[in-house]
């Protein structure tokens, strides 16, 4: 079964879907939506089959495929997935149908083309899968850059007010990062013996000169830090998150930004181990600043979508310190955090989107006492908020806890400071929930006709899988950690910081 070309089909299938959808007539939106949903469900089924076929105790990279592309540069279509990539691929496959369903009627009333919107979402899915499945640095870079184009048009053509500004800012920030990475990719290709193969480069990395490796690390790291985004490269995210249509926002913070943290784990750490250790203190400090600074800003936001964007930046700080703590426990926690954050923040964005669609505004001050009108939706917002602040019993708790104890074992001070982020998280979530759904009913809110309609069947189908997964993974994360753990252990070995004690703890308390 593992000879089946899972990854290339997974990458191509949404692209084929996008082409089909794009050629459907824009006058009748129905077929386009169903075809798009059909393709995304096919991808989901395929990814679940792949999950089952993945051997947990097998090789680090599975489903490897390699086809010739540009022999002059030794660039190949090489796909392979380790545990980290696998969980991200499944996350994408789950989120896309959910987002498609959530965006079902978003474009209908505008003058924009419905097929174009759904086709762009499928193109985005294809590029996101490609970026996680690539095992060739050149191929990775290609997907990394091309990913910008569909997202740019999703924000720019289908977004809310200030979409032009947000789209351009998003594109330019990402492109700047991408070009730094291009310089580093070229440098890596030259010093790494004119190859792009990931494994060959990791093997060659031992012979890199220290200075060269540090510069190359920096090139990759800046690109990933902008993408993630880490403080101080984060300013594009609140604008983009607020201006994009909610479906695109959910994908933007749920998956697209994980490319940054994934890239650090897959490329920066194994290829430049010495440089990673050298830069780790700086990265940890940026992570801790991000946690506190973004959480403080989130408390003060009046726009729900901006608020959720800022909470994401804080969460990326946690992921960042988990990666650069260099323990298997914290690393596993970080990867698990990437998955859980995709589910929790994705849910939060989608529920916020349901509120915004009813009220026609994303400002907290336009709500107030909404729980009296739409009690189920208000409850959902509360649940999504709790998941996002990592309440025990929801999935993010497991990952946040792992990150903190894993970090504590090597960097006590950072872990202690980061813990303050949990308190701030409680503040921004609870205060936001209180101001929107609790208290006296805002009279203007009561007059909005749409606000009388509580959750619809379509919306129930949208939130159900995410809510279920958050609860299940909150109580029983073992299936996911089992897949992640070996890949993270291998990565930490590449960095050369094996720490036996925390590994034992991770196996003892979490994995078993």
């Amino acid at each position, binding site marked *: 079964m593992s000879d089946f070309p899972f990854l290339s089909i997974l990458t191509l299938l949404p692209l084929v879907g996008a082409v089909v959808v794009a050629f459907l007539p824009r006058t009748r939106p129905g077929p386009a939506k169903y075809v798009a949903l059909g393709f995304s469900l096919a991808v989901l089924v395929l990814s679940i089959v792949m999950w089952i076929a993945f051997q947990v105790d097998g090789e680090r990279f599975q489903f490897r495929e390699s086809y010739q592309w540009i*022999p002059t540069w030794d660039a190949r279509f090489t796909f392979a997935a380790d545990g980290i990539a696998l969980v991200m691929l499944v996350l994408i496959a789950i989120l896309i149908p959910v987002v498609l369903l959530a965006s079902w009627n978003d474009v209908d009333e505008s003058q924009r083309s419905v097929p174009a919107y759904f086709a762009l979402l499928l193109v985005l899915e294809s590029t996101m899968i490609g970026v996680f499945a690539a095992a060739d640095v050149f191929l990775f*870079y290609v997907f990394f850059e091309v990913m910008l184009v569909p997202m740019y048009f999703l924000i720019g053509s289908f977004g809310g007010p200030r979409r032009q500004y947000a789209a351009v800012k998003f594109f330019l920030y990402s*492109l700047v990062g991408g070009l730094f990475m291009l310089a580093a990719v070229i440098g890596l290709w030259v010093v790494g013996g004119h190859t792009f193969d990931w494994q060959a480069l990791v093997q060659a990395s031992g012979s890199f000169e220290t200075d060269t490796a540090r510069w190359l690390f920096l090139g990759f790291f800046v690109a990933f830090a902008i993408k993630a985004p880490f403080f101080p490269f984060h300013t594009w995210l609140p604008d983009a998150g607020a201006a994009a249509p909610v479906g695109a926002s959910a994908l933007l913070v749920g998956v697209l930004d994980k490319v940054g943290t994934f890239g650090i784990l897959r490329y920066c750490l194994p290829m430049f181990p010495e440089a990673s250790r050298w830069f780790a203190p700086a990265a940890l400090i940026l992570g801790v600043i991000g946690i506190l600074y973004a959480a403080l800003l989130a408390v003060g936001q009046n726009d729900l979508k901006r608020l959720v964007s800022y909470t994401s930046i804080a969460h990326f700080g946690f992921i960042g310190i988990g990666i650069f703590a260099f323990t298997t426990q914290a690393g596993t926690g970080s990867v698990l955090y990437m998955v859980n954050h995709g589910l929790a923040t994705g849910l939060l964005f989608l529920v916020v989107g349901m509120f915004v669609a009813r009220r026609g505004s994303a400002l907290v001050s336009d709500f107030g006492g909404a729980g009296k009108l739409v009690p189920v939706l208000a409850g959902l917002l509360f649940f999504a908020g709790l998941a996002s602040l990592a309440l025990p019993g929801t999935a993010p708790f497991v990952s946040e806890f792992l990150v903190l104890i894993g970090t504590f074992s090597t960097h006590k001070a950072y872990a202690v400071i980061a813990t303050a982020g949990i308190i701030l998280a409680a503040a921004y979530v609870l205060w936001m929930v209180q101001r929107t759904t609790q208290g006296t009913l805002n009279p203007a809110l009561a007059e909005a006709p749409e606000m009388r309609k509580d959750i619809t069947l379509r919306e129930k189908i949208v939130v159900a899988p995410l809510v279920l997964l958050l609860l299940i993974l909150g109580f029983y994360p073992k299936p996911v950690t089992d897949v992640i753990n070996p890949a993270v252990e291998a990565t930490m070995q590449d960095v050369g910081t094996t720490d036996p004690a925390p590994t034992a703890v991770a196996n003892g308390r979490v994995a078993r």
Partner: protein
Amino acid sequence: MGDLKLPDIDYGALAPMLILFGAACLGVLVEAVVPRARRHGVQLGLALLSLVAALVVVILERNTRIVTIGGAVAIDGPSIFLQGSILLLGIVSLLLIGERSIEAGGAFVSQAAITVGSQKDLRQAGSSGGATEVYPLTLFSLGGMLLFVAANDLLTMFVALEVLSLPLYLLCALARRRRLLSQEAALKYFLLGSYASAFFLFGVALLYGYSGGVDLASIHAAVADPARSEVLLFGGLALVAIGLLFKSAAAPFHVWTPDVYQGAPTPVTALMAACTKVAAFGALLRVLYVAFDGVRWDFQPVLGAVAVLTMLVGAILAVTQTDMKRLLAYSSIANAGYLLVGVLALNKEGLSGTMFYLVAYGFSVLAAFGIVSLVRDAEGEATHLSRWAGLGRKSPVLAGLFSFLLLAFAGIPLTSGFTAKFAVFGAAVDGGQTWLVIVGVITSMLLAFPYLRVVVLMWLSEPGETTPAVSVPGFLTSAALAIGVIATFALGVVPAPLLDLTNDAANFVR
């Protein structure tokens, strides 16, 4: 008087040039004998036929590696590849030049000598067909370019430079609309071009004094001899380089570019941006790699500074432009900088990467100018940026194609712009020119902004009252657009065949 020993002439190797020059002379005769009504068709057919024939000969001669007619012309890998590229790009530009369905009579005026604004001028503006002399002129120019990239001594190179330049000066002046601007462009190009030619010639004289010969091989031999005067060497090299950098539109010899690109008829601008660039860089590559590789350490930093300046000037000034043709002109200057980065790698990869870049950029820029020629209103082409607002709503296909080309210029993967940049930057890092690559990357970031602004204008802005109509392209322009866009995409996705070709071709003969 002893017996004159005639040099050996390999007519097969020279055939592409002979075909073009012959067809150009024939074209002049056609002007004299064929009735006016049928001239356009005959001239276009003749020109296309001769270009295709020359291309076929180039392909048949692909394995020739000789120096012929007494060392004046070298037919080797680079010259054959570059001649092939010039012919291919020339065919596509000729399609744009020959288009007459967008505007009655085509983009060219019928009698350029008539005073602008006179009664006669008003009469000819409306009705009469455009000048058909453009076809022989184009053929002469393209023939000169073929010779320019193959010239093995500096005098032949100078003659070729003049043969390719003089028809271009004339072509610039032939715009049907905005004739004063066009004539100003032509005059400016002519004056500055003459200065550049004079510099080149003076440089040739100094190098003759230095080495006792004008052929590249004897200069190469002289450079290896440390006893000679370095003043003559570096003075000559600098002056020759100025002449070549002028044609390549490198800073600080670039000032003519925006004015000329803006004023010239758009198909001619396309021809200059694509073919002239190939020719100029082809000659620059040959001079630097064949004659002066012995003093590479001396000229590398100087030309490196020129490359940095070119990239910065092109990128920074592109940000401030409000006219589409000027924007593309500054982008073309910046691209000249990227090409120089490839040239300065001074290794086989640099030669191969530069040649790849020239072809990739040529096709994209031809298609881009082809689209510029379609966006028009009653006054002719609407090139001001503000007029492009909301174009995506009015004609999504065209705006989509143009956005794709802009993404290619910005170097986004899956376009030829990315693979080409990768080829030259990779070669430069290999050749130890990392600092040039870093400047190249930074200027690419700057350049992304103006490109993106145009994309935003077309797609995200509401169409204004004055958004012009987009003409339905005729068959010729459609073909040119299709070729340009498909090449841009294909070279981005499957660059391997062309890269293999440039790699095999990347060897000069001495």
